């Protein structure tokens, strides 16, 4: 029987796991975010949450990786804002734009595979398909779990961990899964800490050049436009007779059945019946 878990209890449990996560290697993958309105580069929201989750488990031993074009001012400032969360360094693989990132990450992780890879659900620019963690999991033969909010426990000896997965309507599902695994972090996970300037300046950006980059040819053939507003779904009237069509066009929509009860006992009973029929009690 699962106990009642409040936000506070979860955070205490995670704190206890600081000791449990000893000897566990955790990698996070970060990307360059994009503000939804201004389009300015920023910390990607979900990636920052993944770093927050990793930092809580292994503090500054967290291994962070970025693959993409590195030699420009914006990228560096964004990566520095990740460093400002308390990371020692970020490994950078410098590749040109529109490179197949998955193959480079695969090479990197085949050499030394971490126990846990944390990442955001989808990128904030580009195709933003959210396929990368799934491709890595499939190729590296790791378990994949989507949209987690917390890692409850890790047992390295037994080789399994317990995570909380975010479900619609604020519900949480507890999943026990075997190590090593890849997890994408949901927006419902704890908010990332602020980036500290001093920390960001102290942290190191270790750049590595990659010589085997494959260009994503398929993507270069696509046409990318600004998102246009989606048309609203129209109410289709399937009236057979003219009278029905007339009624549908002119009739005012009535707001529900609108039952009104004046007796307190009777109304309480009606409310209870409604709650039961809606499956709440």
């Amino acid at each position, binding site marked *: 029987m*699962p106990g*009642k*878990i*409040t936000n506070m209890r979860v955070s205490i449990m995670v704190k206890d796991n600081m000791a449990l996560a000893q000897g566990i290697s955790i990698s996070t993958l970060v990307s360059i975010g*994009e503000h*939804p309105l201004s389009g300015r580069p920023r910390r990607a929201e979900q990636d920052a949450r993944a770093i927050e989750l990793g930092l809580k488990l292994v503090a500054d031993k967290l291994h962070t990786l970025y693959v993409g074009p590195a030699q420009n001012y914006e990228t560096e400032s964004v990566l520095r804002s990740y460093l400002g969360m308390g990371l020692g360094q970020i490994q950078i693989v410098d590749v040109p734009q529109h490179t197949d990132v998955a193959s480079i990450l695969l090479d990197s992780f085949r050499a030394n595979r971490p126990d846990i890879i944390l990442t955001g659900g989808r*990128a904030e620019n*580009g*195709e*933003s*398909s*959210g*396929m990368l963690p*799934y*491709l890595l999991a*499939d190729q590296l033969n790791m378990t*994949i779990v*989507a*949209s987690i909010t917390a890692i409850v426990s890790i047992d390295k000896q037994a080789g399994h961990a*317990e995570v*909380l997965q975010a479900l*619609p*309507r*604020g*519900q*949480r599902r*507890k*999943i*026990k*899964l*075997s190590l090593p695994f890849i997890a994408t972090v949901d927006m*419902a996970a704890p908010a990332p800490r602020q980036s500290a300037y001093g920390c960001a300046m102290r942290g190191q950006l270790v750049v590595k050049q990659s010589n085997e980059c494959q260009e994503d040819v398929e993507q270069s053939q*696509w*046409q*990318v*436009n*600004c*998102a*246009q507003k*989606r048309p609203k*779904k129209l109410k*289709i009237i*399937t009236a057979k007779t003219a009278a029905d069509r007339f009624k549908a066009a002119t009739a005012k929509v009535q*707001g*529900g*059945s*609108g039952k*009104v*009860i004046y007796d*307190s006992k009777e*109304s*309480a009973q*009606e*409310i*209870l019946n*409604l*709650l039961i029929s*809606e499956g*709440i*009690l």
Partner: protein
Amino acid sequence: MSDVFRRNPRAQWIGRNRLHPLHHASRGEPERGPSGLLRKTPHNLSFIGPNGIKRIDRSGVSNDDASSRTKAKPAETILPLHQVDAPDFYILVVVDLVSTRLTTHDRDTLGLAQQLANSNNAKGAVLAVAFGELKDDKLDTAGIDRLIHFDSTAYQRYNPEQRCVDLCNIVNELQPKHILLPDSIHGGGDLGRRLAARLGQRPACGVWKVTDEHLLCRGADGKTDIIRPLTKILLVLEECCEPVSETRYQRRLLPLNHTETIINCMHDQGNLSVDPNAVNLAEAGFILSGGNGVKDWPKFHLVAKILGATEGASRVAVDDGYMPRDRQVGASGTWVTAKVYIAVGISGAVQHIQGISQCDKVVAINNDDKCDMVKRADLSAIGDSTAILDDLLNLVEQHRAGKNHQYESVNHG
């Protein structure tokens, strides 16, 4: 029987003779003229009003005998059946099934699948795969030609790895032309990406429009539109296509040829019971909201706790300091999407009514039966809110006690 009208002289005679004992019983039947035409009887149109005056009700509102007799009942139409006996190809759709029913997102996906199966005079069949219990009563009009149903107890829980392997087997066996999944948080998005990675196919995610050769999908987290060629695997957004209507489909059950059980690396440990007040107000399913009319706030909090409701408030209650600002419901606060919304002592300012426009069932508890919230509500309880909440608490406790008692007696028996 032929459709030729046969005259019944005896019935016609009874109809004419007002003194006949069977005359009143026969008045309900439609009267026909000598050639079989329906005749309107002006005598039957009226009824006797409360003051003994003959009245004719032309509005059709009254449910009294005389007027209902004149109303024609809409004939139950049987929708035409779309039959595909030897399909040239399959379009595979994996449905989400939230609480054993098809979601609107599922229906939109099936609508798109039917469009792909039947465009350009093609003869394809839509094959739906359902995992777990399926209790939808409008399944025949959803657009399913063939159905594969995994119904063992293992599928009642979250087991995406097993589902992915099952889908791979189906794809290898039937070689569908396209695979469509709803790109949803109910499992479709996750399962679709797993399947795509396993099959080594590049999926199109966030598809919202399909033309003959091209797809329009959302990229960059919804900031761009990408036009790209049609792919095999499509993860589609809600309202990507109209759901089918006006046609029934065969939904013939296909047998499972290959079933293989794999060792799962993930085990569903069940849902945690979360603190309702920790749930974000915008996505809470059940909200108890308090306003100016709430006099006893400790009682209000107690009721919310016992019912397991997320607490909300109107602007006035927040301004008066009874609730924090992040609990404010309405256009200037949070737009809520709850299934059930109980408004205690809220008269319903325009901004508040806007904020709850997405709610399914609204219950108003209020002193004033003329306020706007009562007009919006599906159920209104008029009276002192404290008394009504007290009665509700008693009833809920009785209900829970009764449930426990039943449970115990079953255990002992």
